[in-house]
C-alpha cells in the first residue's frame, strides 16, 4: 500500500503555471498587460471573476483549502479581517512592497499585499452651489439646515460605499456617530440600497434632485472621460475632507499548487506596468507611489492628505453591531 506523500514545502525547478487569478467583477486591465507578465516569466495567467467583493470573499471562505485559484485580488479593508480570520491567505512579503506607502500596508504579517486604493467621498453637483451658497466642506456641514434634503447615501448593510461612509463618520465622531446620524436623518437624508440607484436615481447627475451624494474621489474624472457630449471639466466636485480610504489587496490563497508562480504574480501586480494600468480600467489609485497617473486623474482629483481609516480588526469586530444600530437610528 502506498502512503500519501507529504508534499515538499519548496518547489523544485523554475516556477510553473498556469496561475489562476481570482478577482471581483470590477477587475479589468488593458489588453497586453497580463501578456507582459507571461512574456517575462513564461507563466500563463488564467482570470476568474466571482461576483462583487462580498460575494468573492464569501465564496473564497466557503472553499478555504480547496481554492478556486492561486491568487485573489480585490479584498478591501472592510472585508480584510474576515478573510484573514478564515485563514484564506499564505504569508508572502513581496520585494515590491518597498515602493508602497506604509499607510496602505495594513497587515503587518504580510498575508496580503496592497495593490490599489480608492477614496469614498461626498461628491457634489457644482452648478447647484456658488459663493453665497457654498458646497459643504466637512461632515459637520451636512447637519446644517442649509443642506436640508440635499444628501443621498447608500445603506451600509447592502452597499460597499455606504459602509465606507458610515465608517468615515465613526472615525470622525467616535461614540458620537449615533447623534450625528440622528441629526442627518432630521436634516432629510435619503438612503438607497446601492450606489447605482443613488447616483443615477437621486443625484442630479442621473436626473434626480439631490446635489450631494456618497461616491468616489475618482468619480469626477469618470464624468469627464465618459461625458457625452465631451466636457473640459467635470460637473461634479469632491469634498476632500469627507473621504474614507478603501485599500484593495492581493493575497496568495492557502492551498495553492503554484506557490512560486503566485509570488511572481503578486510582484507583477505591484510592477509599474500593472500599476499604471489600474486607474483608467478600475478607477482606483495605484498603491505604488512612483506609478504615473493618467492626465484626467492628475487634473481632476485632489486626494485627501489624511483620509479617514479604521483598523480592519476594529471594522470586523463591530460592523454588524454598527450597521444594526445605524438601521435603528436612520431607518426605523
Amino acid at each position, binding site marked *: 500500500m502506498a502512503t500519501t506523500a507529504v508534499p515538499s514545502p519548496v518547489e523544485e525547478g523554475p516556477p510553473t503555471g498556469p496561475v489562476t487569478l481570482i478577482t471581483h467583477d470590477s477587475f479589468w486591465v488593458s489588453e497586453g498587460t497580463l501578456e507582459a507578465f507571461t512574456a517575462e516569466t513564461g507563466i500563463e495567467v488564467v482570470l476568474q471573476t*466571482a461576483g462583487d467583493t462580498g460575494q468573492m470573499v464569501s465564496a473564497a471562505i466557503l*472553499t478555504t483549502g480547496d481554492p478556486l485559484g492561486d491568487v485573489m485580488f480585490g479584498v478591501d479593508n472592510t472585508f480584510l479581517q474576515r478573510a484573514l480570520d478564515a485563514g484564506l491567505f499564505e504569508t508572502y512579503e513581496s520585494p515590491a512592497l518597498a515602493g508602497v506607502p506604509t499607510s496602505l500596508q495594513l497587515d503587518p504579517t504580510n498575508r496580503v499585499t496592497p495593490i490599489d486604493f480608492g477614496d469614498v467621498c461626498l461628491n457634489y453637483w457644482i452648478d447647484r452651489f456658488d459663493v453665497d451658497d457654498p458646497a459643504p466642506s466637512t461632515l459637520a456641514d451636512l447637519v446644517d439646515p442649509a443642506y436640508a434634503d440635499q444628501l443621498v447615501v447608500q445603506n451600509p448593510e447592502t452597499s460597499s460605499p455606504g459602509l465606507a461612509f458610515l465608517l468615515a463618520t465613526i472615525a470622525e465622531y467616535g461614540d458620537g456617530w449615533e447623534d450625528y446620524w440622528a441629526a442627518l436623518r432630521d436634516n432629510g437624508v435619503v438612503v438607497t440600497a446601492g450606489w*447605482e440607484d443613488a447616483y443615477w436615481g437621486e443625484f442630479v447627475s442621473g436626473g434626480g434632485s439631490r446635489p450631494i451624494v456618497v461616491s468616489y474621489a475618482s468619480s469626477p474624472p469618470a464624468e469627464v472621460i465618459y461625458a457625452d457630449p465631451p466636457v473640459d471639466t467635470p460637473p461634479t466636485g469632491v469634498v476632500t475632507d469627507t473621504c474614507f480610504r478603501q485599500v484593495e489587496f492581493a493575497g496568495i490563497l492557502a492551498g495553492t499548487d503554484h506557490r512560486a508562480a503566485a509570488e511572481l504574480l503578486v510582484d507583477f501586480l505591484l510592477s509599474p506596468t500593472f500599476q499604471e494600468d489600474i486607474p483608467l*480600467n478600475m478607477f482606483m489609485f495605484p498603491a505604488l507611489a512612483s506609478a504615473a497617473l493618467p492626465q484626467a486623474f492628475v487634473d481632476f482629483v485632489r486626494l485627501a492628505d489624511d483620509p479617514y481609516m479604521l483598523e480592519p480588526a476594529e471594522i470586523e469586530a463591530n*460592523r454588524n453591531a454598527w450597521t444594526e444600530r445605524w438601521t435603528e437610528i436612520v431607518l426605523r
Partner: protein
Amino acid sequence: MLCVAIPAGFLAVFFLYPVGSILVRGIGVGGLERLAGLPGRASFRGVVWFTLWQAVASTALAVLVAWPGAHLLARRRFRGRAVLRAAATVPFVLPTVVVGGAFLALFERIGLSDGPLRLTRTVGAILAAHVFFNVAIVLRTVGTFWEGLDSRPEEQARVLGATPWQAFRWVTLPRLWPAVAAAASIVFLFCFTSFGVILILGGPTRATLETEVWRHAVFRGDLASATALAVVQLVAVTAMVVVANRMQRRRAVGQRPVRRVLPRAGGRLLAGNLGLLALVLGLPIAVLVERSLASGRGADAAWSMRNYAALADRVDLLPISALGALRNSLLFAVVATGLAVLVGGLASVVVVHGRRTTSRLFDLGLMLPLGASAVTVGFGMLIALDEPPLDLRSSRWLVPVAHALIGVPFVMRTVVPTLRSIDHRLREAAAVLGASPARVRRDVDLPIAARALAVGGAFSFAVSLGEFGATSFLPRHPDRLTAPLALFRLLGTPGEALRGQAMALAVVLMVLTAASVLAIEGWGRRGAVRGDL
C-alpha cells in the same frame, strides 16, 4: 427510462446535491440553532409576513392585469397578435436596476414621486414592478391554453340561456383553472424570491427572505443565519408548490384541439382590453427607449443614435464590447433553452403519464429551483461541484445549466396542463387503430404539446437572456460576460456616455428577446399545425 433518468439526474446533480451541501455546511456552523431562535424574533416574523403578502398581492394583480389580454389573445383575431405576444415577454430580460430607474423616472414625471399619491419607495412601487415583470407569464400561459380550449361548450351554454358571465363562470373558468394555477404559481415564486425590485424600489426598510439570505451570507458573512433563513424559504416554497400542484391536478379536464376561425376584434374592444396592458408595460419601456436615444444634459440634450453605435466598441471598463456580451448571452440562452426543453419536456411526460409517486415528485422537485435563492444555488454549486467527475465549478457550462434550472419550470408549467388536457378519447382511438404507446406519444401528444413546448422554451430563452443573480455567483472568465452583467458594470461608473450605452444595451436586449420569442413560437406553431385533426 430515459424520461425519468434525465430529469432526475439533472435535478439531483445541479440542484439537490449543491443546495443540500450548502445547507449541511450551514447547519454544521449552527444553522439549526439559529433556525430555532427565528420564530421568537419580531423582525423575522415581519420579514416572513411581508415576503408572503407582497408575493400574494403581486400575483393577484398580475393575473387581473393580464386577464383581458389573455382573453383577447385566445378568442379574437387582430393585427399584431403575434407581436403583442412576443412584446409582452420583453420585461423578463430587463435587469431590475434598469427597470427600477425607469419606474422612478416615470413616477417623477407623472407626479407620483411625492405627495399623497407617492409611489417612490413604497410597496406600491414593488407591486407595480412585479406586475410589469410577470404579466407576460399569465398572459402567455393562460392565453395559450385558452386558445386551445374548445369554445363550443360556452356557445351551447349561451344557446341554453346562460348570460355571458354565467357561461364564463361555470363553463370557461373551471376549464381554465389548471393554466391559471400554473401561471400563478410561477409568478408567486418569482415574487416570493424577488431581490432587486425589493431593494431598489421598496426603499431601505423593506426586506424579504431573499434579500435577508443575501445580506447575511454575503454582506455579514453569517452562514448560520443565512442557512436558517434559506431553510425557511425552501420549506415555504415546497408547501406552496404542493398546494398549487394539487389545484392543477384536480381541475384538469379533457380538451380536443379544434381548428376554427376566430372572430376579428373591433377597435374599441382592442383598446379597452389592451389599454391597461399597454399602460403597465408600455410606459416604463417608453422611458427606457427615450433614455437610450437621449444624449447630453439639460440645454445640450439631443436625440441621437450615438449610444447604439457605441455598443460595438469596447470601453476600458469592460473585457469585451457590449455586443460581445450580447453574443455570449445568446449562446448561453441557446444552450440553456435546449437543456430546459429536453429536461422539462421529458419531465412533463412523466408527470402526466408516469407512476403516481414519480409524477408527484417530479412535479414538485423541478419547480423548486424557481423558489430557491440565488445565493443558495450559487454557493452550493461552488462547494459541491468541485471534484471529478463533477469538477464543474469553473466550467463555462455551469452558467447555462443554472439558467436551465430556472427555465425547466416554465416548460413544465406550459406543457403539463396541455398534455393533461389532451382528450383521452383521442389517444384511445389511436391505440385502437394499432398505434404503440410510443407512437401515440409521438403522433398525438407531441404535435399538440409542440406549441406549449415552444411557449415554455421561449420563456426559458428570455429568462436566460436576462438572468443576473445566479450568474453573478458563478466563477467565470471575464470574457464570458453576459449582457445583464455588462449592463450592470456600465452603470457602476459615473459618466453620461456609460449610462446611455447601458440604456441602449437594455433596448437591444428587449428587441432581441421579442425577436427570439417570435422565432421560437413560430417554429412551435408550425409543429402544431401538422398535428391538427
